[in-house]
């Protein structure tokens, strides 16, 4: 029996808005997909693009990046800086051909527990439809797959 694919979603969220929003979703007993692993950051401005790359490399199938709405940042301008960085990072990934549809960017405030639950559900569904993220794995293994291991073993005997 084929197992249904359950995507691993990593959510990088800011402490002040989205994390509180997720907390509200919890205290409101809103049910949402369990595929998400939430990582809390002090601010979206702290979310380095390398963290996203690392998450994908360590087996994430999809990523959510979320923080305070513009003008709502606890540190005044962290999310404005983050927004520029995301814009540049997204076009960077587009240019090297990375499947950017696996990354969902969103603004979720502390009052938007419902939006958070919907966001997680939507992202889980869309990533489930996309299937497992294999691009990075294929990068390293495709070249080895071409090696004729049997032939090499035969020769060395």
């Amino acid at each position, binding site marked *: 029996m084929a197992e249904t694919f359950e995507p691993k979603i990593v959510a990088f969220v800011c402490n002040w808005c989205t994390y509180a929003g997720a907390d509200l979703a919890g205290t409101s007993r809103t049910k949402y997909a369990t595929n998400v692993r939430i990582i809390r950051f002090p601010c979206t401005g702290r979310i380095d*693009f*390398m963290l996203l*790359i*690392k998450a994908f*490399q360590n087996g994430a199938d999809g990523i959510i990046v979320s923080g305070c709405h*513009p*003008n709502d940042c606890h540190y005044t*301008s962290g999310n*404005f*800086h983050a*927004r*520029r*960085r*995301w*814009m*540049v*990072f*997204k*076009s*960077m*990934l*587009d*240019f*090297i*051909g*990375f*499947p950017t549809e696996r990354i*969902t*960017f*969103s*603004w979720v405030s502390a009052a938007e527990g419902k939006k958070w639950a919907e*966001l997680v559900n939507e992202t889980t569904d869309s990533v489930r439809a996309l299937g497992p993220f294999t*691009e*990075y*794995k294929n*990068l*390293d293994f495709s*070249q080895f797959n071409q090696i004729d291991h049997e032939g090499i073993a035969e020769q060395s005997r």
Partner: protein
Amino acid sequence: MKELQNKAAELLENGTVNLLIGFCQDVSKRPVPYFIETAAEANILVFNQDCKNNLSVYLHKKEVKDAVKIGLVANVATLRSVLQLLSENQLGSLTLTYLTVNSGSELVVLGSAEELEAYVQANFPTCRPEDQEMLDKLNVLSREERWAFWKDQLSECVKCYACRAVCPMCYCTVCTTECNQPQWIKTSAETSGNFEYHTMRAMHLAGRCINCGECGRICPAGIPVHLLTAQMNQEIEKEFGGKTGFSLKGGYALNSFKPGDKENFIK
């Protein structure tokens, strides 16, 4: 050429510069970077179309910084790098004099940052046509085709970091590639690690790279890595405006923001 040599000798003679970084020819008549400290040596200086090296990269070296008063024989790309470095407050301790040859093959001597800025703005280069052609080609491909292209290219990378060494904008004393707690960039030359490295490099140079193309030219594997930063530059110019290496108060696109920045992907 003679004019350049005479001027260089004069500058070294009267103490305007202690060290002059320029080009001489090696045995195969190829221009190579050369450091001159006495006026007597100035007669081997050359400057022509083949002098492509971005000599501003040497300005970060301690031995060079110690000379304080430095002359630089430079092409427009190098002048742009210097301008960008000045806007990033990297060359504060140095007194720089620039020698360049303009489009009418006349020697131009620039003695101050303001003169440099005016000269660069008057002679501002556009993207090299061969690069633009490649970018246009890549941008019309599908995502999968682009991924295949870069996979093909970056699988050749052996992480020699020549692209980093040659870049005047890569002046961090500790690079992300050397951080090992955590190990951000894989040390082996696996393709996935190469993707990490080149994404990181392009992101850290986005909005700062001045498009001299040295990283692509220098790559021993022939990977056009300069296209990554060239593309980023164009994106940033389109989205946020402003050119890199254009003015002394250039600013850094990723270090500033406008509340009205427009994107179409944040839900």
